[in-house]
């Protein structure tokens, strides 16, 4: 009985974990590839004192925060409830 539920919980946890991991990797390596291949673009100023590179670098940090926040919210809402169900 609990076996199929366990499989469902596992699958859901894995889907979220791998999607968020890929999102983080795309963001970070996207930033690094721009640094490597298009330095002039990142040097462009979007405001006085603010280059696109600094903006995207800071945004990479913000994305890291946002993704961990998404995971915590998902886990607190759904994952913890499913685990309670498994323990029963």
């Amino acid at each position, binding site marked *: 009985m*609990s076996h199929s539920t*366990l499989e469902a*919980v*596992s699958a859901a*946890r*894995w889907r*979220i*974990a*791998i999607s*968020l*991991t890929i999102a*983080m*990797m795309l*963001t*970070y*390596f996207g*930033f*690094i*590839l721009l*640094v*490597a*291949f298009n*330095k*002039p673009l*990142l*040097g462009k*100023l979007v*405001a*006085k*004192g*603010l*280059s696109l*590179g*600094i903006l995207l*670098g*800071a945004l*990479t*940090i913000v994305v*890291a*925060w946002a*993704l*961990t*926040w998404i*995971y*915590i919210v998902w*886990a*607190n809402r759904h994952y*913890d409830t499913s*685990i309670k169900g*498994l*323990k029963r």
Partner: protein
Amino acid sequence: MSALGEPNATAMAFFGIFIALTLCITIWASRRTRTADHFYAAGRSVTSLQNGLALAGDYMSAASFLGIAGLVARSGFDGLIYSTGWLVGWPIVMFLIAEPLRNLGRYTFADVVAARLRQKPIRIAASIGALAVIAFYLIAQMVGAGNLIRLMFGLPYELAVVIVGAVMLLYVLFGGMIATTWVQIVKAVLLLGGATLLAILVLARFDFNPLTLFDQAAQQYGESVLAPGGLVTDPIDAISLGLALMLGTAGLPHILMRFYTVPDAKTARTSVGYATAFIGFFYLLTFILGFGAMVLIGREAIVAVDAGGNMAAPLLAEALGGPRLLGFIGAVAFATILAVVAGLTLSGAATLSHDLWVNVLRGAHASEAEQLKVARFATVVLAVVSILLGILFKGQNVAYMVGLAFAIAASANFPALVLSIFWKRLTTAGAQISMLTGTVSTLVLIYLSPAIQIDILGNEAAWFPLRNPGIVTIPLAFLVAIAVSLIRPEPESARRFVEQERQLHVGAE
């Protein structure tokens, strides 16, 4: 002109207070350290905010504080490449590692890899990877401590190394994980507080607007300081470094060990959230401090004191708050090294005693008293070794060693750990050969890389073109694990994976 490099009374006083406070914590902790669970895992009683601070404390080394601020002061934008690289591993730790680790293991990450495989071969291979990471990380920290203290206070290098080794030994030997955790918390609060204070003092000169600061830097040194410079020249090397920083974070033994100090997986998860917030905030601050030093101190003055720019933040502190603030920041940097070294030593002691002595030599049959005795003996050995290594590597270029530690962690520890958690068909031989391949291939390729062949040995060319081997060694370790596991399946391991699956989510019942 600058009081840097002279004995600084304020620094001594602040450092004395820090030592006194942390030794009081150690005495308090020693009374609570009676079992191996206390010594390795602080009785599993640490809260998520405390563990978040302690994780940040373990991770924010003097290299990332002084080094990144210095790199930004010298080259502007490029420092941000390191700051982001060092942060983006944390979400990976949260998504893939923290909760399963807490649910499946007891004291070390090898517990998790070995959980459903044959104990001895896994423990031995995991210990080699773990000890290699710890050794290179320790050397970098000890050499950094010696240089930093000589530069800042004029104390002899050897004396500084011995002080760091001896005080760290007291923390770990008597206070175990409880003392080490509190030392990390105190240090993290001091470092975050000190960096925040400095950043506020900098921004106060620029209408509290970072963009005014950046603009001022661009007017003084040209707009190139806001654009990518010479740090990333080879895209493949940059990706390789990024992979090692990102996945290496999820394979550092002293970081992974912290997840056993909390009561359950939910707390482990929340603690990574706090850690990610603190560490990201800290790296944004170092970016401000670097630009602040560039504008307010000037590049020439910074490089004149230390060619690597490592003194940018201390010089900035002196310019903004006189010798008092310089003393405070100096003491914080020293405390930072001390805390990181203590965390590394404790995880090394856990590897030697829990993985090798108890589980390999004694077949998992060791009394509580014996476990504690061996753990403490291992701590003393590691403290002596780290002091000797610090003195042995005096004056050597150890800049590549933290990168090397991350590369081994990403290639030897991370693939086996992730596959053991998520892949049913992983076998003992697969995990074992993967961990050994990861360690050996990283060491060999670093030796053949320009970082050793050209920078250190002075040869004209290197056998291996990349400075960072991660892009080769990480996929190699994964491929080896998968190929060996598929060639010779281990039905027992697959069967136990199904049992383990429940514990992975629910925890030990």
